């Protein structure tokens, strides 16, 4: 068998080398068993280095160092890792694949550490207060579940949310100027996810969200090919709102992102039942994940269409997911189905807000009726879905980001509705080829 050399394993030999130089070059090749890292990889280290130095500085700036001196060595450690990443980017001599992977792992671990430390400082030191009504309602739901009370039947007064530290501007108000009747607006896993952590003593739910975020980032870096690992991680954590400030600001959305990431990893491994289970978990956590389902159906159909019984496989996949979605919700549906339904569809009936297209209306740049808002949202969804159906083969990974675009057209379109799709998109993109190969029954993907 003839071994196949990867192009990067070829060492460039100087032009018209002397016999002496050529001998030495061959010795180097034999000793290092590698090649110079390609410029994309080195630029990835440089970008990571810059990010780490930013993280080190931001940690010092936000940590109130005189009273939190234990963060000083950690910040200096981030600086060291940042400079290491930058200097490693400058290395142009050949390195073995093992050493290159080791460098990538060191830098990746440092970035994860930087995210964890900065999120810690932002939660515990800079912003010790809840920032959304959603998380406060989640905490009250957890407390009610632990007390054996159906949280879908409670209506919380605004003052109770204020007592949990929610600022006034985070309380959702109606177009008549009243506070909405505050009740849960999400499926059951949105609060059941927190129950074991709360019972174990993590009473500030943001710590649990941070655990979900770190687990999500670890899933991404572990699943993607090592040559794109740094870029995949940077693409996610470079949005510091997504990686740091939304967590401390009490946005809990990492709890539905993690199961969708695990769904992709399961597909990559050919574990279709497990993937369906994770889709069901995500759907039972927050409604955003529901917007993936039409695009996922097209994505699945595209790749399963060359396999045996594609429709049957799809029906089985979504049936399992639906069953898993129902499982944690059934007790609350049985207890009070109307309360559950009213809660889950509540966001549909709240006034325009957020940062998407409806901003035009919020600041009176255009004026539209509620019906027009709904028509634009539905129309955008139709166009994007049709566009994906038409271009599914040339842009298959668009499935993982188009839900964010649909939500941008919604009358309620918060930044968190868009940016939490980034990790899913990045992982889907990085695994594009591997996901294709895992389609059952396909001979040649």
């Amino acid at each position, binding site marked *: 068998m003839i071994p196949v050399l990867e192009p990067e394993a070829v060492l460039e030999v100087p032009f018209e080398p002397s016999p002496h130089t050529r001998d030495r070059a061959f010795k180097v090749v034999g000793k290092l068993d590698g090649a110079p890292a390609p410029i994309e990889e080195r630029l990835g280290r440089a970008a990571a280095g810059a990010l780490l130095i930013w993280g080190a500085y931001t940690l010092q700036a936000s940590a109130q160092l005189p009273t939190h001196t234990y963060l000083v060595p950690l910040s200096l450690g981030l600086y060291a890792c940042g400079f290491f990443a930058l200097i490693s980017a400058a290395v142009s001599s050949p390195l073995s694949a093992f050493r290159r992977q080791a460098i990538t792992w060191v830098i990746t671990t440092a970035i994860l550490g930087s995210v964890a430390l900065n999120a810690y400082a932002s939660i*515990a030191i800079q912003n010790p207060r809840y920032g959304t009504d959603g998380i406060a309602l989640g905490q009250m739901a957890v407390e009610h579940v632990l007390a054996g009370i159906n949280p879908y039947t409670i209506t919380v007064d605004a003052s109770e949310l204020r007592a949990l530290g929610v600022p006034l501007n985070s309380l959702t*108000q109606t*177009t008549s*100027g009243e506070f909405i009747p505050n009740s849960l607006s999400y499926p059951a896993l949105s609060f059941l996810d927190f129950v074991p952590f709360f019972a174990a003593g993590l009473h500030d739910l943001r710590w649990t969200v941070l655990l979900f975020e770190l687990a999500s980032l670890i899933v991404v870096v572990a699943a993607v090919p090592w040559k794109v690992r740094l870029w995949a991680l940077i693409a996610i954590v470079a949005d510091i709102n997504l990686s740091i400030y939304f967590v401390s600001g009490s946005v809990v959305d990492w709890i539905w992102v993690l199961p969708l990431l695990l769904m992709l990893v399961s597909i990559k491994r050919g574990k279709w039942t497990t993937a369906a289970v994770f889709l069901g978990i995500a759907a039972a956590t927050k409604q955003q994940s529901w917007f993936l389902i039409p695009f996922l159906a097209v994505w699945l159909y595209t790749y399963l269409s060359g396999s045996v019984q594609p429709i049957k496989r799809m029906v089985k996949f979504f049936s399992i997911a639906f069953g898993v979605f129902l499982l944690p919700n059934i007790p609350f549906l049985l207890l009070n189905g109307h309360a559950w339904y009213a809660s889950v569809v509540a966001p549909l009936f709240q006034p325009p807000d957020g940062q998407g297209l409806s901003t035009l209306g*919020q600041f009176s740049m255009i004026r539209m*009726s509620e019906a*027009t808002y709904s028509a634009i949202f539905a129309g955008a969804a139709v166009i994007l879905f049709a*566009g994906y159906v038409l271009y599914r083969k040339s842009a298959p990974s668009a499935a993982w980001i188009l839900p964010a675009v649909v939500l941008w057209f919604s009358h309620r379109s918060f930044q968190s509705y868009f940016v939490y799709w980034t990790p899913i998109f990045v992982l889907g993109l990085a695994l594009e080829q591997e996901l294709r190969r895992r389609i059952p029954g396909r001979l040649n993907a």
Partner: protein
Amino acid sequence: MPRLSRFGALLAIICAVVVAVAAVARATPIRTDMAVSILRATDAQGLGRPNVLELSVTNRGTVAVQPVFAVQWDHYPFVWNGPSAAVAPNETRRVVITTDNYEAMPPLASGTAPDAPSVRSVPFVVRVNNAGDVQYWASAPWTAQIDRPAIVNGHFDQWLPPDFSDHGRTPVGWDNYSSGQLPDLTLVKPDLAGLALEVSKSAGPQSNEWGEAAVAREISVDACPALRVQFANWPDYLTSDGVLPVLMGGVQVFADDAPGRSLLEVPSQGTLRYVIGNGMYIWEQPPIDGSLVVDLAQARTLIAAGQSPTVRVKLFLAIHRSSPTLRARMAVRAVDCLAS
């Protein structure tokens, strides 16, 4: 029949959707139209932020509008209290809207000199909508210019929302200066009297040297040359050797341009004034009817703050690890500005 290209198909779908949306928009026209402008902003509550706005509202539409008013300067609007009477078509009306909530008041712009007699808010707009409708009309951006109060929230009526910090809560207009670290508990709390400071100190050579619960704010000496601090209760002042304090609560005056120097006025049984080695002047003084008067102009001179226009005033309760008493509480009813 020619086969439609993918792009052609998508274009056809986009056109169909645009036509459908236009039809919906045409079938549900907007019959309301408003104009709103801000005429005046004032600080009726002495909180150093605008909390009363005078507006002009004109209904330019064909149906009456029941206005809902909101003030906005960043991502999210705050609904303010306004008159609920409907504004008839073609009617122009002057209305006054108010809020009692500190968070709903536009904050001050940075960069104003701390001793300036007036302050400017950040730019904000007033948004109006007809109750129940999703159409909004916004005023032009406005910057409020208000008089700077000599002292803010001196009776501790308003508090920021609670949080998960280790130092309790923070009254509006003040900073929480508590510095104790676990296992010491150093808390600031709302109290029936006004404000309460609580310290529970751990002993032993390994523990933190001091545990301190405190709130502070910057005060212009020209606007407020003296303060009356009214205590509800206070701890006995204790020293280790007749000079060095180990438990004390009272008022501390310091300034940014006189680092390391400060005056501590503490309620005590007798009158005694002395300075300890690290630049701290300690004045023991018996309260009169529970009150201490702090002469800020004199304090500024004493701590050699020169012509600094402002000083920081801190209400504090501090316990040293060597104190025989490791738990203490102090409550302050009010801090009032005295003209002279």
